[in-house]
């Protein structure tokens, strides 16, 4: 069964190559617009960290813009923007991703920039000191002054006792302060080697010529040591866990999370379907029950993010100011019990499948979207071809499978609950 026969693959043929240093290269040419997107995926995230240097993956993402041998400090963006391009990056628990969108004629320059920093990044005390302050400000923005950030941090520390998913991607403030240059140097050697990276190029270019250019730019970067594995020592959960956060908010909030499987588990795609049935769209079950029916919540979201190690299936509820948190929790539990006990309607499954297919198509509507989606599928599912095969895989999921997954994963004894309790600081 060749994935190239599938309709989406015909829309976007993918060419692939592996360099002798282990760098994986994927090319997705498309000549509709005179632009190109380049994505570099490194298989490293906060799960590869240890206590004492939490946040180093994210801090390192900042360090990558501070100069290398050929292009000095801050030249990366200077050269890129001068050539009609823009860049950014993000770090998660599992992956660190760098990307650039730019005018097609700048492709060789961008390859030169990207390969320069993979080959010879400068790591010095001065830039570390400056980026440390910037990251601390980012943490103040996203966590310390943002209740949703505080709750998410409390949730991870509650769900995970031993696994590195326990700490926040941005790291604990004290650890951000403590990371040293030597930590960064070791980190770079291990995780930013070509054999731990995949390059995705999508847009207006000739693949043969660009593959040659990539070989020239990256070919001489030495292979790194094998990446150490991550130990998952997470003990089993023996009953519900709870945490409470007091904050000067006007309205309470609630997160209820259940332990979920790792991405490669066969139930992962079934949980995608369940996520859509429960929480995606105005007509989804929880939106109807909690926002429009009982009017307890202002917003409801279901977060089922694929993770390399066992993840979590989480419900985020922003409540009405006068809502009773316990009543909201009970109403949510009742809806989840209804799925586990009574199952779902085949029409709801079909609706979820239609939306998952549309979601996939939507990802493919831009060069950046194609490179990002296919790169992510490759990283999590083991092959980008599985991404093209997703609509077919979702097609094999029926109502019985959804009910079985709900029974298995939405187990009240495996629940963790974080509540945000409004508190007036002025009194």
């Amino acid at each position, binding site marked *: 069964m060749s994935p190239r026969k599938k309709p989406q693959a015909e829309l976007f043929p993918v060419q692939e190559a592996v360099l002798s240093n282990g760098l994986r290269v994927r090319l997705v040419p498309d000549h509709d617009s005179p632009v190109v997107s380049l994505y570099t995926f490194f298989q490293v995230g906060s799960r590869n960290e240890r206590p004492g240097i939490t946040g180093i993956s994210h801090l390192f993402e900042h360090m990558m813009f501070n100069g290398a041998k050929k292009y000095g400090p801050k030249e990366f963006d200077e050269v890129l923007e001068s050539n009609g391009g823009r860049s950014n990056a993000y770090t998660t628990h599992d992956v660190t991703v760098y990307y650039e969108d730019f005018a097609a004629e700048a492709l060789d320059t961008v390859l030169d920039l990207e390969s320069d920093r993979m080959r010879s990044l400068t790591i010095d005390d001065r830039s570390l000191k400056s980026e440390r302050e910037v990251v601390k400000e980012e943490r103040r923005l996203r966590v310390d002054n943002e209740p949703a950030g505080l709750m998410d941090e409390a949730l991870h520390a509650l769900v995970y006792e031993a696994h590195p998913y326990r700490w926040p991607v941005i790291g604990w403030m004290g650890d951000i302060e403590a990371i040293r240059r030597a930590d960064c140097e070791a980190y770079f050697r291990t995780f930013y080697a070509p054999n731990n990276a995949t390059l995705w190029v999508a847009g207006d270019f000739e693949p043969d010529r660009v593959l040659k250019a990539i070989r020239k730019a990256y070919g001489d970067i030495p292979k790194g040591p094998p990446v150490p594995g991550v130990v998952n020592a997470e003990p089993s959960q023996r009953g519900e866990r709870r945490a409470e956060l007091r904050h000067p908010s006007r309205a309470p909030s609630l997160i209820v999370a259940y332990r979920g499987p790792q991405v490669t588990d066969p139930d992962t795609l079934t949980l995608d379907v369940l996520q859509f049935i429960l929480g995606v769209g105005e007509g989804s079950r929880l939106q109807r029950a909690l926002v429009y029916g009982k009017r307890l919540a202002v917003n409801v979201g279901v977060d089922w993010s694929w993770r390399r190690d066992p993840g979590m299936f989480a419900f985020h509820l922003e409540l009405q100011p006068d809502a009773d948190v316990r009543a909201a929790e009970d109403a949510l539990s009742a809806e989840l019990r209804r799925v586990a006990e009574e199952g779902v309607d085949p029409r709801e499954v079909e609706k979820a499948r239609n939306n998952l297919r549309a979601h996939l198509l939507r990802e493919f509507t831009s*060069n950046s979207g194609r490179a990002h989606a296919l790169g992510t599928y490759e990283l999590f599912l083991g092959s980008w071809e599985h991404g093209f095969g997703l609509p077919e895989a979702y097609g094999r999921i029926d109502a019985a499978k959804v009910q079985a997954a709900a029974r298995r994963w939405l187990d009240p004894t495996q629940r963790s609950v974080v509540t945000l309790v409004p508190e007036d600081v002025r009194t």
Partner: protein
Amino acid sequence: MTAAKHRTVRAVEVGRGLRLHRLRTPGGLPFTVAQRGRIPLVAVRLVLSSGAAGDPRGKEGLADFTMRLLRRGTALRDAHALDEAIEFVGASLGLFAGEDQVAVALTTPAEHLPAMLHVLSELVRVPSFPEDEVRTERERSLGQFANDVDDPSLLADRALIRTAWSGHPYGHDVTGTRASVGGFGRKDAVDFHAAHFGPRPAHLFVVGAVDPDEVAGQIEEAFDSWADGPRTGVEVPAPGGVSRGGTVVVVDRPEQTQSQVRLAGPAYRRGAPVQFAAQVVNVTLGAGFTSRLVREVRVKRGLSYGVGSAFDTLRAGGLFSVSSFTKVETTGRLLSVMRKEVDRMRKRGPTKAEVEKAQRYLAGLFPLRTETNESLAAVLADMALYGLGDDWLDRYRDRVHAVSRAEAQEAAAAYCFPEPPLTVVVGPAERLRPQLERFGPVEVLSADDVL
């Protein structure tokens, strides 16, 4: 399926092989179809030149409230049936209100386009605004205000709009205030709909892998009965400038460890010829990762994670603003650096090298603005709403490249705060006051004052 014989499709070439097919339904709805791409997802966008600027006094937020209610029931279907019709097929619907436009954006798998055009037509023609849905939406909006208190960045933006354009139709957030929304009833939405919705101030756009002639027939069928209504959209007087320039408005949030900071002064209306020179100035001062502001604030001093400047332009006027945030202790220092950089830009403008770099940046990234069907539909809508001209897409890059250094200097002199800007800070007022007094008289508001 549809006969084209009575139809004269006027196709306009707008650059890069893109042809716009333009027509008008018998009822008077202008529409534009653009055939494009291979992905079987079609973007549909219906815009009306109405919006928050048309909110009656005391009814601030009504345009936004009315828009959100469109999908909560029509003469033919209740909210659940509408949600099912849209969401079952994998389509998605967005309802937006801006200051001087409202928009319904639909993305649908191509095979469901005819059915979705009917849904869209129903939403804008015959919404029923059921009493209980109005009540739910009102409660939900009020609940959202309570949640918004926790978003310092949003509080800063709300305080800025409210102060800078005080007394003008642009001088309130599109979502209104707790006081105004708390008073909304069914009749308000019904009246707003009657006053502002109709084919003549509207324009419909369809972009995707479609046959323009076939789609024209589908649009005519779906919108056949939409006629009459208002002749024109909302007329907005030009705002005189920015009120309370030179003052420092502090929204007091005693528990915060970080302050949000905004500076603002008057700018030009959307589509004004100066826009290209002004964008060159903006890129140099505060867009991207290599702007002067990023260099001075983030790179050299590590004062913030983000800093930027922007021209927000509307039909009748615009604002030029600079935004950032920093820990409470360094707020005064951050403001000094921001002010100093804007002053430097106003006095000398960008250098020749900076002008050239900004031109390459703007021109190189321009194609990304229309890369997806949704984004192209939105740009086509803006071209129509703001009279940007049919050659907007084709000539944008030439116009950017044509900006001279002298023109950029003039734009900098005109918009980089020739008069003292309005300053807005969200954070703990008591700790901030000593740092802020040197920037102007300090006025303290509570979060409730801006919600």
